[in-house]
């Protein structure tokens, strides 16, 4: 697979200029994510009103894949209900963990489909999914620190 399929323009753009790379105000839910393999850290902040994600943002350090994934995730989930966000999580997770040669449904994921290329790079799947696991933890706020391990 060509590297350009992994590092597509939209990914490089989100890496360079991550959207919602901020702490929203107000905030009522947050979680920290950590990838012990590489030391990458991310914090996802949510402002949830009723069952709707009114605002969200993230902070942290990571590679292009993890930053772009976090950035696009925050774009996609703003204004969504918690149930819709959960459905996004499930579809995204299915997409990045599917076998490299399998057909995956990405229609509902919109722009996030550009991250399907990580399937070809098993060592990088955790980079793409860290923000999502952290977001899910923030939604349920069951525990504050999640790990990809």
């Amino acid at each position: 697979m060509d590297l350009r399929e992994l590092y597509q323009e939209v990914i490089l753009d989100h890496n360079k200029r991550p959207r919602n790379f901020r702490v929203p105000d107000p905030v009522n839910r947050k979680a920290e994510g950590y990838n012990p393999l590489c030391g990458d850290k991310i914090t996802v902040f949510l402002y949830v009103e009723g069952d709707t994600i009114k605002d969200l943002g993230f902070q942290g350090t990571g590679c292009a894949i993890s930053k772009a994934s976090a950035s696009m995730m925050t774009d996609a989930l703003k204004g969504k209900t918690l149930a819709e966000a959960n459905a996004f999580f499930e579809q995204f997770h299915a997409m990045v963990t599917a076998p490299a040669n399998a057909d995956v449904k990405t229609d509902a994921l919109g722009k996030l489909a550009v991250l399907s290329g990580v399937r070809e790079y098993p060592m990088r799947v955790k980079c793409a999914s860290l923000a999502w696991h952290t977001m899910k933890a923030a939604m349920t706020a069951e525990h504050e620190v999640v790990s990809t391990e």
Partner: protein
Amino acid sequence: MSSKLATAFDVQKVRRDFPILNQLIHGKPLVYLDNAATTQKPRVVIDAMVRSYAEENANIHRGVHLLSERATRAYEEAREKVRAFLSAPDAREVIFVRGTTEAINLVAQTFGRANIGKGDEVLITEMEHHSNIVPWQLICEEKGAQLKVIPITDEGELRMDLVDGLLTDRTRMLAVVHVSNSLGTINPITTLAEKAHARGVPVLVDGAQAVAHMPVDVQALGCDFYAFSGHKLFGPTGIGVLWGRLPLLEKMPPYQGGGDMISAVTFKKTTYNVVPNKFEAGTPNIVGSIGLGAAIDYMNGIDFAAMQAYENDLLAYGTRALTAVPGVRIIGTAARKASILSFVMDDVHPHDIGTILDQEGIAIRTGHHCTQPLMERMGVPATARASLALYNTKEEIDALVKALARVREIFA
């Protein structure tokens, strides 16, 4: 001068000894620059292990039959090879373990448990691998002792001026890495051992990254324990060595209980075997030790002075080449270094560098290299690390630099 010496070292001949090097990765010739993670194995090591399983496999120290006798002899011959390799006085001082990590845990759990008490101190350095931090943290927590740390400079050298002040009447161990896996710094072990011994403090050296790159003489170093892994010395995984001074080993309680480490067992009381068997409970990695012995035989056929001159030349060449790449900064610029080229690149995370280099057939390590406190000290979350061994070439460094241009192109 160094390049003149380097020509005496025939790298192409060495490369032919390592079958794995001759292959394509993603359609490109393999450039293996991850030797600090593990080294490749010469044909003679692979053959020795296959022969052992095919022709002389049996358990050791037990059978009266011929195969057991042969396996026992091969195992003990490997121990003697390690003794000679380390210039140690006595083969009984060589304990076979799984690797450096187990060797350090063994010392922490036996010597440490017997000698570290409440209010005592263990002294390590800021550049230690997690395997020379966590075993000491565990015993310090258990005993109510304190872990103290020798700081390093921005270049990645130990603050030797602070060592005397950090060694106190309560220090029970100085545990220090010989060559840093993240920075390449060669630490002045002899001086450290002199300072520690002046306070009656024993010294453990993590030699994992040293043995493949320089002659190690434990008596000249003056340390009390020396640990290394077979797989970082062109041998197999799962076998490593703890060397320790005999009087210390004899006084230490056993590590694990089981077969081979006893001389007599009743339900009331067990008498332990003598050193080294006391520390080798259960069936050991017999074939691993034979593989390690073969790796040492292989290294004995290498002119170490020529190899060191060659590697130093290669490291200097790599340092110059990487420094010349715009936006690249080398992490770890100590005056005395071996093997390691750790670097960061503006606006590109090491993981992305690693993935792009892999597509060019180049294997490097990216991440924190199991030295998280060190990464924090150097102010970086992670680095990309190219680590050299005796079979690497200037052409491979050129390939690395060329691939970094590709990284820059993608992340323009």
